[in-house]
């Protein structure tokens, strides 16, 4: 461990001083940095997750109600367009979560904080599920509107590549035995792979694709009816809060595993043992 040489080395290296600086900030009771310490973040995540989950559930119910009972029939596509309320939020989340993974990967590489890598791990399965949902709903929507489940155009192909990047991340981090090496290798894949996200996003502009252009853009008036736009945003927020809740729950389990040698996890395990017997 790092702490072994501390105090014995007369001239601590820059890296070590940097690390000590971060650890000092994490110990400071009023600094927000303290939540970068797994011991502090574990209970915080446990308190926050149920709220995000409840918010996601409420928004999902509201969004589904709007999607099926308020949003009107589309003049061109009829009823099948209602897939959009799931398809677009899922696609957004799949891209966004990959960028967040890359962000935590960079933070982990630069600051050498364990929790950052754990956050990246916790996001990957959920991102992969959103990516699959985007592809699946896209295929089922494409069949009645384009006449085909799949076409190798730029948007669909780059989204499929994102799926493989997620699966690659999951396979890579699980294949490497040493968690520190797995963390760094995974983070590198997330950082390099994130180049694909803008390619997905702008593919409909850069290439002539069968896939339609962006449904929502910040630079021009929305091309869809307000109620449809609102429904899509409500569903997107539901997906977002769900992802936060699930990632927080998943990171808690990860923290217990990774920090099992510490005293505070021992205390937490004793508490959980009592709960299990009840």
């Amino acid at each position, binding site marked *: 461990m790092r702490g072994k040489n501390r105090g014995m080395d007369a001239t601590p290296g820059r890296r070590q001083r940097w690390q000590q600086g971060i650890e000092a900030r994490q110990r400071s009771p009023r600094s927000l940095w303290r939540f970068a310490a797994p011991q502090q973040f574990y209970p915080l995540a446990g308190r926050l997750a149920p709220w995000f989950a409840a918010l996601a559930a409420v928004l999902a119910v509201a969004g589904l109600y709007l999607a099926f009972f308020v949003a009107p029939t589309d003049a061109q596509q009829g009823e099948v367009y209602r897939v959009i309320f799931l398809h677009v939020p899922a696609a957004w989340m799949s891209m966004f979560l990959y960028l967040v993974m890359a962000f935590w990967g960079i933070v982990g590489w630069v600051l050498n904080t364990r929790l950052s890598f754990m956050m990246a791990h916790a996001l990957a399965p959920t991102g992969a*599920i959103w990516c699959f949902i985007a592809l699946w709903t896209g295929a089922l929507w494409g069949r009645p509107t384009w006449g085909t489940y799949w076409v190798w155009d730029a948007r669909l192909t780059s989204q499929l590549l994102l799926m493989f990047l997620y699966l690659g991340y999951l396979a890579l981090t699980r294949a490497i035995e040493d968690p520190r090496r797995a963390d760094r290798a995974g983070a590198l894949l997330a950082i390099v792979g994130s180049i694909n996200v803008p390619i997905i996003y702008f593919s409909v502009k850069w290439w002539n694709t069968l896939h339609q252009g962006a449904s929502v853009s910040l630079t021009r008036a929305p091309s869809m009816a307000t109620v449809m736009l609102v429904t899509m945003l409500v569903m997107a927020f539901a997906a977002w809060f769900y992802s936060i809740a699930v990632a927080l729950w998943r990171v808690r389990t990860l923290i217990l595993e990774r920090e099992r040698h510490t005293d505070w996890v021992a205390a937490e*395990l004793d508490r959980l043992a009592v709960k299990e017997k009840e």
Partner: protein
Amino acid sequence: MHWESWSAFWDMGGRGFYVWGSYGVSFALIALELYFLHRTRKAVIRRLLRWRAARLEDTGEDA
């Protein structure tokens, strides 16, 4: 509410397969994710409790 009947709702203008196939599979995946999340947490806690018990026995420490 613009559906004439529940059967019209399920039919989705003849596109029921595509609409419900999308929503059905997606929500099934989300339910599966939550189930596995819960199951993994239980399994990890049980494994760590066994690990801790074995370690306490080895070192002869008091719990």
